[in-house]
């Protein structure tokens, strides 16, 4: 059986400041080495100052992943020399002497399957190394400490995944959850990184490091399984090793470094006192937490009678569920959900499109009302929607400008219907034996009116004329 376990590093990009100082957590817009201070570059005499917000957000993640959360948490030093590490140790968490990291064991449901969470810990991100030069001889390494000290949450799973598909589904759930909690923007470059452990039946555990995005994580796991299976089928032994994900070639490469031999000499970070996270704090955090994706989904189903599939699609995406939350009323909820899932999601399917979209929840309300009151048809609604996204104008203007209003004038509509009846004599004949054929005729009327015929009136008139 194939076993896959993940170690996911997720930056808390939505926080104002770094984990131990007041430099910006969002370091991406800065020139190299300008988002730094005495603390995050570890100048002599500087001391870490714990960002309480980071502890809160990390605890929220732990609670959302159904992890145990200890009464008191502690920080430890992980000691090793590396140029991206200003103090040559990383402040992180450890559970060797009892559970002292923000999250202990937990479980996440992926479809019908349960994926175990081993632990969740809060730690500081190192700086970034940039290599320049073409050959080994003239290569130079540049260090940018802007990232050093950014709050990072590490989520370690049990080796419970059996295939890349489960990995992908889990990552989708995780991204949605992080976005819903407003702690992180997974789409930012470098905000999500991962290591994966992969082993196939009869093989040894192989660790893949340095995977820079969720997208690549699935690919890397897939590659690694294929590689191991091909070795196995040729009866070549699979050795226990660390491999690196080559981002450009999309393959894993054996790393020569002896990282696994490092002894990190963990010990308690004396500069940061233990943090108590008692029940009253947890209760307060819970009350501040946004509704979970799962509970949202169930509310949509039970309260508004929205079909399960629609509710699922709607609840997992924060952008759309926020639009829904702001636009819906008791009477239009189903219609709004429909507009979002059948039309809007196709129209704004990328991050850029969302950013440029001029549509707001008021527009959705207007459109739902117009559909429900027979002012415009669904087809017209979609046309209006795409115009609103571009211009942000209000619906009534767009109906006028694009002439999208329903043809609900009986005389006008009768003319169209009569011409359809004369053109489609064969279908008219069939309606006598097969009443369903009438829908075909309605469609024809729609075609002739470019989708603007009031569907209910059309049906009534057709029935009368036949």
């Amino acid at each position, binding site marked *: 059986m194939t076993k896959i376990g993940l170690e996911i590093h997720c930056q808390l990009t939505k926080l104002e400041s770094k984990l131990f100082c007041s430099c910006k957590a969002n370091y991406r817009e800065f020139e190299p080495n300008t988002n730094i201070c005495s603390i995050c570059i570890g100048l002599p005499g*500087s001391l870490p100052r714990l960002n309480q917000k980071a502890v809160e957000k990390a605890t929220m993640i732990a609670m959302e992943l159904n992890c145990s959360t200890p009464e008191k948490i502690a920080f430890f030093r992980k000691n090793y*020399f590396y*140029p991206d590490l200003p103090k040559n140790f990383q402040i992180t968490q450890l559970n060797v002497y009892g559970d002292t990291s923000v999250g202990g064991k937990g479980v996440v449901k992926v479809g019908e399957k349960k994926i175990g969470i081993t632990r969740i810990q809060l730690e500081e991100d190192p700086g970034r190394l940039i290599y320049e030069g073409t050959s080994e001889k003239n290569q130079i390494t540049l260090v940018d400490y802007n990232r050093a000290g950014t709050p990072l949450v590490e989520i370690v799973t049990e080796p419970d995944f059996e295939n890349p598909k489960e990995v992908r589904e889990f990552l989708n759930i995780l991204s949605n959850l992080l976005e819903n909690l407003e702690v992180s923007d997974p789409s930012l470059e470098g905000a999500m990184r991962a290591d994966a452990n992969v082993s196939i039946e009869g093989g040894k555990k192989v660790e893949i490091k340095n995977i820079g995005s969720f997208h690549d994580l699935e690919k890397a796991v897939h590659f690694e399984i294929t590689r191991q299976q091909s070795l196995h089928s040729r009866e070549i032994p699979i050795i226990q090793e660390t491999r690196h994900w080559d981002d450009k070639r999309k393959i894993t490469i054996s790393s020569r470094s002896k990282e696994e031999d490092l*002894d990190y*000499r963990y010990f308690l970070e004396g500069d940061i006192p233990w943090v108590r996270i008692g029940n009253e704090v947890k209760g307060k955090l819970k009350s501040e937490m946004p509704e979970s994706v799962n509970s949202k989904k169930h509310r949509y189903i039970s309260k508004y009678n929205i079909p399960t599939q629609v509710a699922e699609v709607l609840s997992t995406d924060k952008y759309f569920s926020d639009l829904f939350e702001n636009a819906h009323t008791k009477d239009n909820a189903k219609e709004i959900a429909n507009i979002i899932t059948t039309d809007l999601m196709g129209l704004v399917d990328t991050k850029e499109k969302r950013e440029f979209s001029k549509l707001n929840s008021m527009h959705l309300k207007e459109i739902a009302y117009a559909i429900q009151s027979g002012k415009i048809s669904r087809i017209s609604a979609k046309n209006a929607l795409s115009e609103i996204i571009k211009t942000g104008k209000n619906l009534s203007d767009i109906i006028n400008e694009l002439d999208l209003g329903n043809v609900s004038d009986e005389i006008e509509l009768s003319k169209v219907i009569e011409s359809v009846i004369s053109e489609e004599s064969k279908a008219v004949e069939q309606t006598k034996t097969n009443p369903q054929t009438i829908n075909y005729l309605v469609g024809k009327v729609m075609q002739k009116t470019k989708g603007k015929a009031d569907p209910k009136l059309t049906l009534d008139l057709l029935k009368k004329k036949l």
Partner: protein
Amino acid sequence: MNLKISALQFTKDVKSGNISAEEFISKTMERIQNVDTILHAFLSLNNNAVDQAREIDKKIKNREKVGQCFGMPVSIKDNICVKDTKTTCASKMLENFIAPYDATVITKLKQQDAIFVGKVNLDEFAMGLSTEFSAYGPSKNPWNTGYVPGGSSGGSAVSVSAFECVASLGSDTGGSVRNPASFCSTVGYKPTYGLISRYGLISYANSIEQIGPLTRTVEDAAFMLNLIAGLDHNDDTTINNNNEDYLKDIDSGIEGKKVGIIKEMIGEGIDPSVLSATKDAISKLERLGAICEEISLDMVKYSVAAYYTITATEAGSNLARYDNLRYGYDFPVEGYEFNSYIVKARKKFGPEVTRRIILGGFVPSAGHAGKYFLKALKVKSKLTRQINEAFKKFDLLISPTVPILPFKIGEKINDPVALFLIDINTVTANLTGKPAISIPYSMSNGLPIGIQLIANSMNDKLLLQAAYALEKTVKLPEIPI
């Protein structure tokens, strides 16, 4: 001009116009020029000190608001950051490190118009108890310049006892304030862990060390504490002392107080003159109305071993940042791969620091932690339990500060274990976070002996009251230099 006055006397005299800050500072700088060629307390001097004093005199004259120090000359151990000045830790590794910010204690003293006359000597990165491990040469004991002044805050103690300043700030990881205070006959005080911000103190063993004042009198130590103690948002380990006034009621006396005599600190290896001084101090306390009784803290036996294990571990980590990449000394990186570069760059550490870094790589390492580091932590927590138990019965504990007299320069430098053992009486307060003070008590063959008092956490005020009472019973000779 009499330079031999206490801090409180100085502030009173300047405030009342009896003396001018400028004159006092000029005379102090002159004194430093005269004696420091021999004593070598200072690593660098503040060339603007006299100008700064003149500004303070001007403020006094114009009846502007002046801080409580009134231009008092203070020396600062060279492991505490003073903005725009060299902060070397007496190491070649930081030979050219100019601190870009002030330590919290420095900010507070600046606000109170203290004048920093210079940065003073220490054992490299505060590791040692004689200043012989300073990369810039040892300081000399002003009572006898052939002897060590103690350490690691040796420069602080020398500068105070030889009247090169009125007060000094040192740091105490295992006795580094109290040991030189005892050897040089000054007051040396290590407060409760967390009472004074460590922000800007260059870490050696951060979980147990504190900044502490070295002064001429106990009152001066209380005065300094008033100025620098308290919660600091730059140091998460600081505690709120509700702006306690440590000078107020300092003369309350110790009548009825129970004092425990720590058996393990007056046993084997103690110098007879130190023992008799301690016994004398105990009888004085009794005459002042205290009730003294022996107590055994058997974990003290293991305290030095635990102390060196824990401090080496933390030192190994705290000093890892000195890879010469972001600051340090001139040594170009071209042509080196990272690991080979830092191995070479870190050769600038002196022998004692190197020894402790190596030890610090070993004792907490996988496979050895159980035998050394984790065991040391166990001793630390057992010792803490024991001393807490003792404080249920006693208000204070007493011992000699150092079991031996100051020794000759060079006498013990090649015997690190013998040096380690001298810390036996001081490390307990650090390992348990308790406040402790050393006060000058007597002399033997022209060399000073100090007595140590220890109190329970946050009982710093009581500790200072007791030390004040004992100090009043002491009469000591004039320093020969």
